[in-house]
């Protein structure tokens, strides 16, 4: 127990925790959306994220930037990041759609038992991971340094770098946008209707198949955005990066109440913060343990997570 370390590093731990938490939250939204609509843990979602990290790096590589090139000017950097976000989101979204069409839809047609979906998810996850492993020769791929690493501004001892600022603001925009999309638009109404009762919704004229595909694409878009910031934060990626991050993000989704969008956002940010504080307190080798301890303790007292599970229920 190192309280001095926690107190001394508190501002920095909070900022990095928030950034990590925002990445968890963006991935967790994908788990929660699919779970809310289909009652299905989409175990292949971690690979959707993983493909996104490569999508961003490939985009930058197309502009001749790799881990050795120097940082371009700020304006050009921002443009490149925006391009990478679009590319990674599109790539992740299409991979998510591909998984839904090839691995889940045929099973839904046959009214297969729920556990069969788990196996096709594992199969899709193996296939994507190994495919990328072969394509990248199982090497770690570095991402270029885009924004300067120095402090953007600081208040008291609280300093924020440009990457952190950008991550947090884009993540918040994406989350608010998704919340608006699901709760305020016509498409969102369709999603909530299918989440409440898929067959009744279909009888009322909602195109169930299209709504499910939309949900997968939305989750993929969020994971793609998270992937760009994960690249910028850690500076590299690997074909098996999705596993641990996906696991943590899934824990975050359960923490907030799986199937609940705001829950996933809160769960992700909370997990990022608690992990950071915890690793300062107990030592960084216990970082991964803290996530699971928090999760299990919370589930003992609130068996459906912080906010409870509801995509359609509470606000329908």
């Amino acid at each position, binding site marked *: 127990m190192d309280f001095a370390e926690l107190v001394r590093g508190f501002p920095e731990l909070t900022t990095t925790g928030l950034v990590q938490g925002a990445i968890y939250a963006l991935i967790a939204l994908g788990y929660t959306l699919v779970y809310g609509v289909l009652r299905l843990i989409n175990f292949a979602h971690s690979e959707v994220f993983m493909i996104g990290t490569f999508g961003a790096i490939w985009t930058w590589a197309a502009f001749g930037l790799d881990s050795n090139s120097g940082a371009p000017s700020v304006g050009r950097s921002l443009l490149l990041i925006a391009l990478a976000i679009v590319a990674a989101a599109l790539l992740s979204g299409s991979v998510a759609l591909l998984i839904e069409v090839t691995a889940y839809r*045929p099973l839904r047609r046959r009214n297969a038992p729920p556990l069969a979906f788990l196996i096709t998810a594992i199969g899709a996850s193996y296939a994507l991971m190994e495919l990328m492993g072969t394509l990248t020769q199982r090497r770690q791929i570095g991402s270029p340094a885009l924004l300067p690493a120095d402090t953007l501004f600081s208040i008291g001892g609280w300093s924020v770098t440009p990457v952190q600022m950008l991550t947090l603001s884009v993540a918040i925009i994406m989350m608010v946008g998704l919340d608006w999309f699901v709760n305020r638009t016509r498409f969102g109404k369709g999603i909530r209707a299918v989440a409440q009762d898929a067959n009744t919704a279909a009888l009322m004229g909602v195109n169930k198949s*299209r709504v499910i595909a939309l949900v997968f694409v939305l989750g993929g878009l969020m994971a793609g955005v998270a992937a760009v910031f994960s690249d910028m934060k850690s500076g590299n990626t690997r074909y098996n990066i999705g596993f641990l991050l996906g696991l943590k993000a899934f824990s975050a989704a359960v923490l907030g109440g799986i199937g609940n969008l705001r829950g996933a956002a809160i769960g992700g940010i909370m997990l990022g913060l608690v992990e950071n504080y915890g690793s300062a307190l107990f030592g960084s080798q216990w970082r991964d*343990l803290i996530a699971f301890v928090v999760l299990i303790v919370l589930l003992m007292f609130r068996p459906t997570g912080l906010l409870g599970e509801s995509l359609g229920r509470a606000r329908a």
Partner: protein
Amino acid sequence: MTALRERWHSASSAFGRRVDGLPKSARITGLLAFVAFLYVLPNKWFYEYLNIPGVWIPLYTTRNDMAAVLFYCAWIVLLSLGLNVVVGYAGLLDLGFFGFFAVGAYTVALLTSPESKLITEYNWLESPWPWLVTVPIAVALALLSGVLLGAPTLRLRGDYLAIVTLGFAEMIRIIAKNQDWILNGDRGIPQVAHPPGKYPDGSAIFQFEFKPYYWLLLTVIIAAVFLIRNLANSRVGRAWVAIREDEDAAELMGVPTFRFKLWAFAIGAAVGGLSGTLWAGQANFVNSSTFSLENSILVLAAVLLGGAGSIGGAILGGFLVIYIPEWLRSVGDVFGLPETATVFGNDFDVSPTSLRYFIFGILLIIVMIFRPQGLWPNRRRAAELKDRQKEVAVVE
């Protein structure tokens, strides 16, 4: 496509009926012959005999020892038999099965290794124990840990149970990896004892060669199959089926659901622990890297691929999830497939060896799409599923 499926279904069920129609003596002879086949399988002369050129696709693996592959298959088969009790019979989704495996393996390692800190630092033991003595202790500890983990968590249902068991298994793994006072962290515990036994000429049977371990595991599996089969056909087994089908209805009918779920969990854990003791005896070394979540997921895939709730299915699934990737390793040599492909001036490794898990993943998807009930399902489950398929799903 549908016609093809229909024909395949009728053919496979016709085969099943024909086997059922045989007199009991014939069935037992067939079973014994199959078991004998399994015992001779790791002998090189036997599978080379099987490989008549041009007729057989070689069953054996050229890039690694067939006995080793069979040992790993048998290892996963034993684990999936244990997990089948939990997932298949009682319907509890357990994603942390390797936690119990870890308990078994570490117990054996701590008690039998001369390097164990119980001996070198804490002086709890005078000298390392023999392997055989520690097996019952390890199994009992695994069973106990199953009860300890199950008691607070089994009140959760479905997916929440899955995430909690997953969390616990990851916690066991991370603790084993990082703590140093007893489990030696990542360095692990070396010099774990082998099982006892000597050849007539005085040399030990169980050294580093895989073949005797495979035979030992096969024997243990046969014993486990008998035990689990009897259990499944007893009052306990009927209670499990009732819980799986409708927990609330079972409770109302007077089945103490919590107690039977705990039993299933504990029995699964004990089998997992047993598998851990055998694995530690072979590997001679235990550290946390074997207990990864990937392995728990692989065992779960084995159970569901074979068909949840069926012993034959668990065996078949456990065999296939190890054997298919290992066989794909060497299939390139057999058919002379290319090793690398050049696209836009970049060389990519496209040998089946490095793509084996990619192919395996695709195979998992295809098998599940065509046989969502598993390859060799429990009859009752298959019938339920047929009913489900008839249920009206609203057309999109």
